């Protein structure tokens, strides 16, 4: 019976080889994915044993670690938790991390390559290893104006403010927000309680609306139509329909202007007038005239379709969606149908117009510092594309001034010219009876822009069907601009 025994021996070897192959799969092929899984606490626990670097903005500490006397040697704390939560994210031993805590984790825990020399000297001198620090581009005054603009009114929404010339993110707010402190508590029970409460909260609090959620842009998308039109034979005085309502091509569905009003007095209007009054029928006609390819090309030049954008947190891609027919093209032209953008994308759009058409890559980290707070890396502004030629950007600015003039809402700043566009986007299964999302995108001063903002108010803020971008979002945007201009002047 030696033959079967030999065969059994071969089978045993095959079994061992199979085990080794599977181990290789788990420990080599899938290793990165499993190691970085937010539910894998090992990395966090290792990180808790050394001092994690701080996150700051203009000298103000957003997150830092202080020494404690329990087993986890350092306690992470967030002095202004809810205000900066979309920026810092949380850092939990049980639930992983988010925001910069996650995206800049390697710097903060000291494992980033740029900190290598320092780490080596820590090792040789026997000093406790510690992490590097992150200085953000956030302007605390602008961030506060953005957060309070939403939170004081009890609005769910988001504000993003950019420096148009560089792409630096001056404010990134998302409300309702949460306090990351309990999630960093050393008592797992406190973490669990907070985690469950945050996850059950309605509207959701843990999501960063500025970069992780997409919304229909509504009329703010008309800036992209206009940008494309100005490069394809149209000028501000080109005639467009002034009808109060049109029937979508090859359908029985009517598309109406806001409140069913005609676009000015005559049977036709101009592009300038149509943008200032935000006439849906005119832009539906314009989108059809431009065609899908032109519209897509222009949207991409403004940053649509960037799926690997990082600030360094990953940013959800903005998209036009499928456009199967002319009716869909007409609806997409007014920022409805399947068009979806992040608040950051809308801020990037106006920032590019403000910056002579140059679209800059948005970024949140101004500087990386080593353990002694000496700068070791500074972010250089980076241009993504030329969204429109400088001349077209100038014309768009001019048209946006007209739009701002017609926009209601309080908070206009005396002596400051704001170029803006509002949006009131229908959404949901029953759009006519769902409070619309409200947008306000703007930059100022119009002649020498220093700040560009996008404000999104979800569901009309107070859930009113009459809410518009002008009434709900514009006052917040203007307050943010005012804070920005005061602090940069």
């Amino acid at each position: 019976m030696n033959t079967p025994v030999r065969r059994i021996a071969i089978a045993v070897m095959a079994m061992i080889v199979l085990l080794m192959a599977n181990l290789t799969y788990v420990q080599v092929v899938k290793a990165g994915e499993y190691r970085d899984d937010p539910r894998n606490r090992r990395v966090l626990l290792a990180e808790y044993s050394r001092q994690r670097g701080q996150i700051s903005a203009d000298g103000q500490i957003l997150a830092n670690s202080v020494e404690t006397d329990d087993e986890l040697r350092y306690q992470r704390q967030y002095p202004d938790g809810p205000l900066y939560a979309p920026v810092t994210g949380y850092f939990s031993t049980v639930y992983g991390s988010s925001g910069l805590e996650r995206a800049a984790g390697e710097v903060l825990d000291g494992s980033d390559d740029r900190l290598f020399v320092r780490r080596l000297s820590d090792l040789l001198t026997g000093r406790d290893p510690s992490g590097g620090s992150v200085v953000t581009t956030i302007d605390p005054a602008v961030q506060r104006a953005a957060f309070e603009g939403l939170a004081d009114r009890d609005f769910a929404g988001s504000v993003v403010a950019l420096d148009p010339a560089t792409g630096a993110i001056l404010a990134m707010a998302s409300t309702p927000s949460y306090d990351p402190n309990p999630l960093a508590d050393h008592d797992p029970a406190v973490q669990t309680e907070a985690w469950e409460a945050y996850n059950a909260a309605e509207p959701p609090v843990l999501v960063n609306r500025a970069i992780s959620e997409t919304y229909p842009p509504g009329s703010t998308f008309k800036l992209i139509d206009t940008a494309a039109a100005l490069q394809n034979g149209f000028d501000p005085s080109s005639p467009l329909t002034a009808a109060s309502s049109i029937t979508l091509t090859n359908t029985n569905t009517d598309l109406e202007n806001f409140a069913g009003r005609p676009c000015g007095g005559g049977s036709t209007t101009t592009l300038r007038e149509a943008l200032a009054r935000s006439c849906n029928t005119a832009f539906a006609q314009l989108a059809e005239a431009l065609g899908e390819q032109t519209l897509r090309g222009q949207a991409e030049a403004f940053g649509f379709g960037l799926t690997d954008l990082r600030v360094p947190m990953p940013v959800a891609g903005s998209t036009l969606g499928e456009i199967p027919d002319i009716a869909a093209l007409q609806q997409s032209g007014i920022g409805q149908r399947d068009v979806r953008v992040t608040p950051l994308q809308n801020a990037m759009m106006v920032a590019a117009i403000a910056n002579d058409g140059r679209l800059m890559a948005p970024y949140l980290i101004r500087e990386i510092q080593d353990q002694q707070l000496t700068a070791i890396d500074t972010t250089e502004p980076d241009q993504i594309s030329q969204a429109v030629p400088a001349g077209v950007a100038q014309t768009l600015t001019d048209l946006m001034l007209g739009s701002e003039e017609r926009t209601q809402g309080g908070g206009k700043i005396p002596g400051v010219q704001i170029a803006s566009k509002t949006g009131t986007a229908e959404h949901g299964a029953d759009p006519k009876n769902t409070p619309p999302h409200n947008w306000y995108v703007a930059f100022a001063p119009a002649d020498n822009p220093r700040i560009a903002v996008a404000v999104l108010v979800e569901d009309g803020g107070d859930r009113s069907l009459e809410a518009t971008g002008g009434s709900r979002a514009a006052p917040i945007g203007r307050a943010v601009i005012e804070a920005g201009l005061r602090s940069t002047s």
Partner: protein
Amino acid sequence: MAAPDRAPGGAAAVPDGGGADPLPTGRGVELLLLGFAAVLVTSALVLVQANQERELSSTLLYLGAAYLALFTGAHLAVRRFAPFADPLILPCVALLNGLGLVMIHRLDLAEAARAAALGRDIPTALTGRQVAWTAVGLVLFAVVLWAVRNHRLLARYAYTAGFVGLVLLALPGLLPSSLSEVNGAKIWLRLGVFSIQPGEFAKILLIIFFAAFLVQKRELFTTAGRKVLGMELPRARDLAPLLVAWGLSVGVLVLERDLGTSLLFFGIVLVLLYAATERVSWLLIGLSFFVGGALIAYQLFGHVRTRVEIWLDPFEDFYGAGNQIGQALFGLATGGVGGTGLGAGRPELVPFAATDFMVSSLGEELGLVGLAAVLVVYLVLITRGLRSALAVRDSFGKLLATGLAFTIALQIFVVIGGATKLIPLTGLTLPFLSYGGSSLVANYALVALLLRISHAARAPLSRPQPRAPIASANTELVERPK
């Protein structure tokens, strides 16, 4: 097994009427390798202590020396009672056992630290108990070597062994849960201060029974039945033993909720049948029984279905049922190729890190490299056992050695495969590495039997016969070893 025919001391290497040149016993090699294992285990202990920032004192060296002394005792027992036994088997076992002790000590430290952080009472350290079980195991090892002077004698007690094995296997399933259930599996006998898993001992007794039974009835099983697809099928009535084994496995599964033992038991019977009959048809019939049983179990038992669902996607319910495997995979992945280093990882995050998930503890801290090395040690152990099966002259010894060696192989496959998501998790311990007294002690008995058989395989044929002229020698019928 590259060249089984060159087995040192294998039948082919023994000159007829041997004894002219005494064969090297290999005991020197064994002692040298045991010393090597002691150095490895002591180094591992030092690494754990250093990485846990604990005192490095000469106590560690004493512990290493004590370990070496313990196994030198075992070595002396082998030298005395089975001098020609295979010299690699004991060092492999010693290394695995030692590594297991170090890892259990390391997990003790982690549990103590965690309890201190949470302000709970520090749990009892497991290392001391495992050291005690090791000592008990080695005593049993020596006793088996001493008591079983010739493995063929075991065949005489086959039916007794089978009966006792059956009782041990069935006992926990029939006893009330209060006496037999720990963590949802009814596989224990709770005897006041300590508990044992009788199944671990039943395993060996049943292998003895089946080996003897199959040798006795071998002719029966090789009687050809119908021929289908070029394969000779056994007669239907000869299927009875396989059916009984299958029924027992299902019984274990139902009454004891122990998927692992059930699988192990059936796998061994199948392999023994194949080895005894050389018929592939048995394997195929057995496998179809297995598939049938598995399908029925999946339909009938919620816990089997849960296991399969967890296997398919452990991360779906990470904070619930999938936590063990999910954490184990995270641990293995965090270890990566080189491991975090002994004492520098977080193996305690995996539930049952010292028992069912010993493999993820090792994989996290020793990495793929370390686990591969452990697997190779197991492979050496198993192939040495199978080599003894090839070399030993009697059929019973062949079957017994095959069964014993294959048990270890199947068990590590089921355990490591289960913990690394290759197959559904079943819940068995890693022989010699995992914490658990019954498993350790039973496996020492198993190794003692393997050494006994390998001694028989390698020892020179008993006393040189007086050479008679070939012509006047009585005609003797010698069965050709298969």
